[in-house]
């Protein structure tokens, strides 16, 4: 029994230590200032790597998810003869839930893992040490632009995901299954509230963006500098950030539904 308590206590302490380290890492990184002439260049570079290169997977997934929701929605609504409400169903599902969550999960798998592996490998090959030795702070030069790139990319990718998913729903509902286009779009317009649906969805995606990028960059910086260490860190990034996204999604939804 005592051993079990010790084990639980040790686990609790190690989790607290890790969270504390990650918190300190984030707070130290975001207060660093890269040279002003480099700010935009470095940010543009990471926006391209994290955001633009994630576009294909986001767009393709968005179209298919929109199409599936359109198809499933049509079959359900058809039973009640209210297929004209399909636009509302697709838009609300995508903007409130599927857009932020699926984009975040895809971002964690595509860009989060790449961030961790890149930083971990830089650490293993002493590139971060070399930078420090040249008097260049890796937190400002490497970590900060990547963190900001992720923070900005995820909400933008979510907007694009939602747009193409709704287009996918339209493609199936209106173009293929014959739902009236006017009803599809006007019902959507009437039922989707900018503040309650769109803004709340974007708030979720911004939170997910911070969590995933923080996790990815921290795991890379804290990785054991070996092939196995980097592999574990990459796995941890995807697993932890996916779980955090799903957990936070419930908490944020509950807060938003509760009138927060």
């Amino acid at each position, binding site marked *: 029994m005592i051993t079990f308590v010790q084990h639980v206590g040790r686990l609790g302490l190690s989790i607290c230590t890790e969270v504390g380290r990650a918190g300190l890492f984030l707070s130290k990184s975001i207060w660093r200032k890269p*040279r002003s002439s480099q700010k935009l260049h470095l940010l543009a570079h990471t926006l391209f790597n994290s955001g633009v290169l994630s576009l294909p997977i986001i767009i393709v997934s968005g179209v298919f998810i929109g199409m599936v929701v359109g198809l499933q929605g049509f079959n359900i609504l058809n039973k009640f003869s209210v297929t004209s409400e399909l636009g509302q169903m697709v838009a609300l599902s995508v903007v409130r839930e599927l857009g932020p969550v699926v984009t975040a999960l895809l971002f964690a798998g595509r860009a989060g893992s790449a961030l961790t592996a890149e930083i971990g*490998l830089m650490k293993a*090959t*002493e*590139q971060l*040490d*070399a930078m*420090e*030795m*040249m*008097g*260049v*702070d890796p937190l400002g*030069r490497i970590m900060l632009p990547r963190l900001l790139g992720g923070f900005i990319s995820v909400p933008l990718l979510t907007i694009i995901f939602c747009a193409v998913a709704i287009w996918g729903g339209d493609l199936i509902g209106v173009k293929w299954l014959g739902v009236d286009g006017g009803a599809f779009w006007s019902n959507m317009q009437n039922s989707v509230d900018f503040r309650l649906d769109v803004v709340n969805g974007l708030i979720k995606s911004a939170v997910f963006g911070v969590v995933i990028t923080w996790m990815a960059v921290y795991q890379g910086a804290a990785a054991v500098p070996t092939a196995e260490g980097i592999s574990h860190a990459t796995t941890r990034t995807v697993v932890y950030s996916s779980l955090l996204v799903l957990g936070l999604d419930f908490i944020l939804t509950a807060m938003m539904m509760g009138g927060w």
Partner: protein
Amino acid sequence: MSEALVRVENVSFAHNGRTIFDNISLNIEQGKITAIMGPSGTGKTTLLRLLTGQLKPSSGHVYFGEKCINTLSQKELYKIRRKMGMLFQNGALFTHLTVYENVAFPLREHTKLSESMIRDVVLLKLEAVGLRGARDLYPNELSGGMARRVALARAIALDPMLILYDEPFTGQDPILMGVLVKLIKELNDILQLTSIIVSHDVPETASIADYIYVLAGGHVVGAGKPQNLVADDNPHVQQFMHGLADGVVPFHYPARDFMADLLSSGEK
């Protein structure tokens, strides 16, 4: 005797409860090549990290000129590191940048030189290491020796006062070893640098070093000019300088009695 650029005064350092250095002191003279030698695992690279402030000693002080490295703030430390260059064991080149951009990196970070001036400096440094023609290659297209020479060009890009070499000869073929030995000596003399070489390659290091410190068991066990150390009667120094397989540094890692180990069953 010239003035000491780096002074290590009564430094002790422990990591994970293991004492790496126990009250060591040494001086690195300005303009000279000083070698820090010793068997693998004696903490030579750790000593380099203490000299550059990447690690802090448990007690004692490390001085660079008049500045005490281990009490400096992060900002001051970064500032002082601009006067130091370090050649890492594997080069530590930035893999996403070309050879040219790697050498230009410290110049772009710390100076406001125009692009044409940066080009001139980079080409001069690459010419010094014989790799001007490789400027458009990426690190993964370079051999190990070439990567080290590029890293050397990058380390001297800002014309540092001190340059630290971490195992520069490890894993090099005899030709490249000769090239590196010549480069280190020439750069030190022409650019009037102060060099610290951490190595366990005795003949190569002894051929260019002005002064050698031999470390073992957390202490400085020998110090002197190369020719004096070869004749030193300290058993640690003798074993190291002459490459003897067994001696005060035992061949075997500490273990229990061999026979008892063989006869014990059910244990790993």
